[in-house]
């Protein structure tokens, strides 16, 4: 608190408008959490899992996205979301509150344009769950600029391709009741992975018709444009299905089947996906199975490790991954070995967002 107040006064006194992420303590990750009181907050974490700052949120969060240059993050509410908060990570102030237009709901994820001037949000039309990408003016107070179709039902995670303003969207395919999350179309869902231009033109679509009940929900991107997508199986949980796919613009999908002994370990559910830096490893987490599984880019299973309620996952700069769980642990994971970094009386929410 002292540090934050100091920085705030410093910022005011010197009237230097351009603060950077270094002024926020250079967090390596953002993550939403529930506190022991039941309150919710967004936290900034160092590379070693130390908590650098926290900002309260009015309800349960889900994921966040960080501005490419300003120390500013947007924290998204849990689906069906009615708010997103723009948080100044230096002063702690909420600088803008985004509310979806009438009849729209946030779906927990968003992404900035390459220059940080525009924020894109994953949304649905409440009735029918038709996907929309909301466009917000991040340069001028986050005014709503417009929207375009996400090219599917129930979009979830949205990311920008590295070095480009093109977007990639996981259209989960699930139509939900507007008042809660009850799925309404599991027998006729058609999820897809869509690449869209910043104007909303459909550039490429990937579908997996042989497993239409595998909801494509979460994304990770490698700097060379390789996209990893994590899925959640809505069919019979006794049927083994892959939960991770890899794709590159114009290429074929690689599906990652677990080894025999692990075929049900994830309980049909992958909650987060991340690439390790360098290396050639991509991993998915399952809070339901209490498991992290890593694969090669060819889809070969490499290792797995058990950890109850694990979900948040990001790259570790020193190699491997950093994971978070609902019991308050932040862990480094390398080659199937867990190394606790920090513990707190917090329940870390679904995602760990690397900055």
């Amino acid at each position: 608190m002292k540090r934050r107040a100091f920085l705030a006064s410093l910022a005011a006194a010197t009237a230097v408008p351009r603060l950077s992420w270094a002024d926020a303590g250079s967090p390596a990750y953002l993550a939403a959490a529930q506190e022991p009181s039941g309150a919710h907050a967004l936290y900034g974490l160092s590379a070693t899992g130390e908590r650098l700052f926290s900002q309260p949120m009015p309800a349960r969060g889900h994921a966040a996205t960080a501005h490419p240059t300003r120390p500013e993050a947007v924290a998204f509410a849990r689906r069906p979301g009615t708010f997103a908060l723009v948080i100044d990570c230096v002063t702690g102030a909420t600088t803008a509150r985004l509310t979806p237009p009438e009849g729209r709901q946030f779906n927990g994820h968003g992404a900035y344009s390459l220059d940080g001037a525009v924020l894109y949000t994953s949304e649905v039309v409440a009735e029918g769950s038709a996907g929309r990408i909301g466009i917000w003016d991040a340069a001028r107070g986050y005014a709503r600029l417009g929207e375009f179709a996400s090219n599917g039902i129930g979009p979830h995670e949205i990311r920008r391709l590295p070095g480009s303003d093109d977007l990639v969207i996981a259209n989960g395919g699930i139509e939900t009741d507007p008042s809660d999350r009850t799925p309404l179309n599991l027998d006729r869902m058609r999820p897809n992975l869509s690449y869209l231009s910043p104007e909303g033109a459909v550039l490429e679509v990937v579908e997996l018709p042989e497993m239409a009940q595998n909801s494509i929900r979460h994304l990770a991107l490698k700097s060379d444009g390789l996209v990893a997508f994590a899925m959640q199986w809505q069919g019979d949980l006794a049927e083994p299905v892959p939960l991770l796919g890899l794709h590159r613009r114009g290429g074929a999908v690689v599906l990652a089947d677990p080894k025999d002994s692990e075929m049900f370990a994830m309980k049909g559910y992958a909650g987060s996906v991340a690439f390790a830096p360098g290396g050639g490893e991509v991993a998915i987490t399952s809070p339901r199975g209490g498991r992290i599984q890593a694969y090669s880019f060819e889809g070969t299973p490499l290792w797995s490790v058990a950890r109850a309620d694990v979900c948040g996952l990001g790259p570790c700069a020193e190699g491997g991954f950093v994971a978070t769980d609902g019991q308050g642990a932040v862990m480094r994971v390398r080659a199937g070995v867990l190394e606790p970094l920090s513990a707190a009386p917090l329940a870390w929410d679904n995602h760990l967002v690397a900055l």
Partner: protein
Amino acid sequence: MRRTALSLVLAPAAVALALAAPARADVPETVAKVILPGYAGFARATQDLATTAATDCTPEALRAPWNAAFDAWLGVQHVHIGPAEEEGRALAIAFWPDPKNIGGRQTEAMLQGADPALVTPEGAAQLSVAARGLFGLERLLYGDASDTNPAYACALRRALAADLARMAQTIEAGWKDGFAETVLSAGTPGNTTYLSAAEARQALFTQLIAGLEFDADTRIGRPLGSFDHPRPERAEARASGRSLRDVALSLKALRAFAGALVQGIGPIPATEAAFDRAEALAAKLNDPVFAGVADPGKRLKVEILQQAIKATRESAEAEIGALLGVRSGFNSADGD
């Protein structure tokens, strides 16, 4: 140093526990009085099966020890932490449900191929998890699959029985020689599996709740299907006629597990009453393989048993969860 005596394993953890919270006996009680004896019983029963198979591999000789091994498995089947989860052992011991009949097709292919290399313990250990274990043996002990090649089926029974006994022994040894201490030393420096005592309690509590869910949603829910589309053919261990017995023995095991988990902490009257009701319903249900799910007059009794187990789960989650100060997973229950 390799430990062989249980007392050596328990001693350091008991000291740690005494320092931490002398009144609580939950986790050590569950490990010492339920989990370890459960795995020891399963190891003995599977060894009996393998010993019998070594001298007589006919179905007539093996059905009784196979059933005894299955009974013993139900005492610990719900424990999905530790050595049973490593290398897919629990999956290889009991590969069910199997809606695509992966196991059945592999058994058939093995009987057709009659590869002598597979009917050794080493060969069997290399088989797919779907082909092995209790259900691999069930297909060779009941029904007519073995008719394809009776001599090879006999050798395969012997190999699968030996493989099953080896897995049971490995799990028991894994608990005694390390994992029991991992659970009991939760929260001590160097324990990277359970970072606090609460995490170990949480893990055991999760096994109880998931076990009750498996009985209600899978063992009973799969054959129930829907009213318009009942699926009696999906009952567990239908060929051997054990479907209802499996539920009853699982409930008995889960009840003992729940009792140990709250030992010395507090009473669980609602959970006990719910177990009473579910066990009584199972005891008087005269439908060993849930064939009645397809008969509107008999289906209701199966549904009532399912509801009673769901009610037991709800009671246990609320009552035991509150006593232990744990709850279902923040993220696993969220689902997004």
